[in-house]
């Protein structure tokens, strides 16, 4: 079994602004690790460093013990690292099925020139990707939407398509960048179920999230990021009782954890 995601000593500065400072954390396979923190804590930069969209100044990111090349987003899929985006990133102009099948892209080995002839092997690969996508869509209740253009879906379903596309990558590690952002409260439960399902499948999930209720209800381990540094980490219960966490979120002053988790 995969050892999941390991981030070690990652730092990143933009000009004089230190966005990440020596961040070390791990997201073991088969569990949900959450990263929380106030706005500007460096959560999105962390997600971008892990997925190769941003090159770190120092430190390493490894999946299943293999260090990933910094700043090369294109290489992540073949290392079985998938991610979703804070702002919906789907392939408009393509059907839901095609969107999901794109997840299998890096597992299809045929050359691009071979696609001009589209021989038996290319067709077999296409069919395999489409059938895997169908199975996933059925599992997430999107089977009836397979042939709809993705832009015709309501926002919540489009978000789900993005997540299913990541699953089509057969990932070992998934980074979810604020999956609840923009979703109405009614979708929180299905979303939580989907994320829990990923961990149950043996995937190491790194959940970067603002919604405390979601984080506290499904995470095994919570890492609190503040001003680019790991402030504290532990179980949801431990983190919720940590006064530094409350202070980082709400500023100093008397307050209760209930306010946080509301």
């Amino acid at each position: 079994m995969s050892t999941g995601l390991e981030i070690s000593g990652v730092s990143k500065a933009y000009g004089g602004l230190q966005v990440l400072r020596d961040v070390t954390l791990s997201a073991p396979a088969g569990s949900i690790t959450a990263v929380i923190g106030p706005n500007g804590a460096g959560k999105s930069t962390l997600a971008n460093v892990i997925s190769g969209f941003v090159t770190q100044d120092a430190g390493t990111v490894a999946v299943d013990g293999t260090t990933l090349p910094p700043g090369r987003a294109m290489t992540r899929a073949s290392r079985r690292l998938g991610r979703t985006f804070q702002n919906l990133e789907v392939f408009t102009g393509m059907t839901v099925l095609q969107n999901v099948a794109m997840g299998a892209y890096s597992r299809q080995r045929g050359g691009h020139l071979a696609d001009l002839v589209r021989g038996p092997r290319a067709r077999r690969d296409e069919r395999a990707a489409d059938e895997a996508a169908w199975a996933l869509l059925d599992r997430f209740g999107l089977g009836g939407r397979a042939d709809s253009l993705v832009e015709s879906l309501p926002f919540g379903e489009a978000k789900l398509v993005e997540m299913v596309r990541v699953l089509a990558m057969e990932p070992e590690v998934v980074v979810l960048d604020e999956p609840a952002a923009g979703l109405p409260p009614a979708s929180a439960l299905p979303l939580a179920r989907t994320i829990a399902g990923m961990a149950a499948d043996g995937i190491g999930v790194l959940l970067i999230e603002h919604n405390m209720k979601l984080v506290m209800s499904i995470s095994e381990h919570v890492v609190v990021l503040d001003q680019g540094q790991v402030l504290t980490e532990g179980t949801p219960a431990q983190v919720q009782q940590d006064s530094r966490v409350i202070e980082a979120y709400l500023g100093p002053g008397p307050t209760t954890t209930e306010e946080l988790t509301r």
Partner: protein
Amino acid sequence: MRGRRDAAGVVRRRRKAWELWITIGLLVVLPLISATDYSLHIWTRMAIFLILLTGLNLIQGVAGMTSLAQAGFFGLGAYAAGISAVRYDLPPLAALVVAPVVVTLVALLVGVLSMRLKEIYFTMATLGAGFVLFLLFGRMVELTGGPNGLVGIPPFSIGGLEFTEPIMRYALVAVLAALGAVVAHNLLVSRTGRALRAYGASEPAALAVGASPFRLRLLAFGLSGFYAGVAGALEAFDARFISPSTFDFMTAVLLVVALVVSGAGRMVGPILGALLLTGIEVFAADYADYEPLIMGVIFLVAVQLFPRGVAGELAARWEDRRERAQRSGESLGDSSAPAGTTRTDVGTPAMTEELRR
């Protein structure tokens, strides 16, 4: 296309090839409608435009990057074939092979230099490349014949068989156009075509699933050059005379406009565009000076009526209707979603709007 499942629950998707069959069907039907020398000449022009636009569609329609080099590549193919045959006595069949190879290499060179730039700078680079080629056609007098054109191009021939009969000339071009359409269709429906579209729709998500934009776009651009090279060689052997003015900036713009108006990115876009270009050429022959004006007016009206191109708009409407029918079917208990699965049928109109952004 709606997926169907067989008894074992295995998904069988119906092929989405009807647009390809329209293209091939038209190539077969046209000479049956009229086979006079004049109409065969017109159909041949149409098929050459079809090859040009099929190539342009790969970079413009599928990859979403506007190329203004297609006319220059067209000319390069024509001159490469013509010069090979006239100056180097290459057999026409060999010249027909040389021309697309030369153009593909030039396209790859232009692509390597400009493909990493933003779309608009890529377009400017292709504009520059097209313009440089146009200038070379006129200036390299000893090789190209200069502004007076290259004369004495032999008809196409294989072995001793000369393609001088209009029907044979049409057949040659039509067969290659059909072959080109099949290859383009393959690319469009394959994972490579999907990845090209995906990259145009969401760059970060395409990177995240491991698609290499540089290689894919270079491939699409190189192929657009290959098609232009074939079209150019066919033009040279069909017209037997070529001059720079056929491959100027105006032609480059006309090609892009015709494709966009017809429906860039769809397989029927190039055939509609080719019919449009041929129609304009025929009907505007008496008013040649007004051709840009006519094209301009068509473009202005078309982008208002059909923002996604004629083919794009019609297909989208048809798909909308089909989807609505499908949904009403679902509400009658025909849902294919298994019971007990989660459905997040939520989201406000504003969010859907945001999605369409």
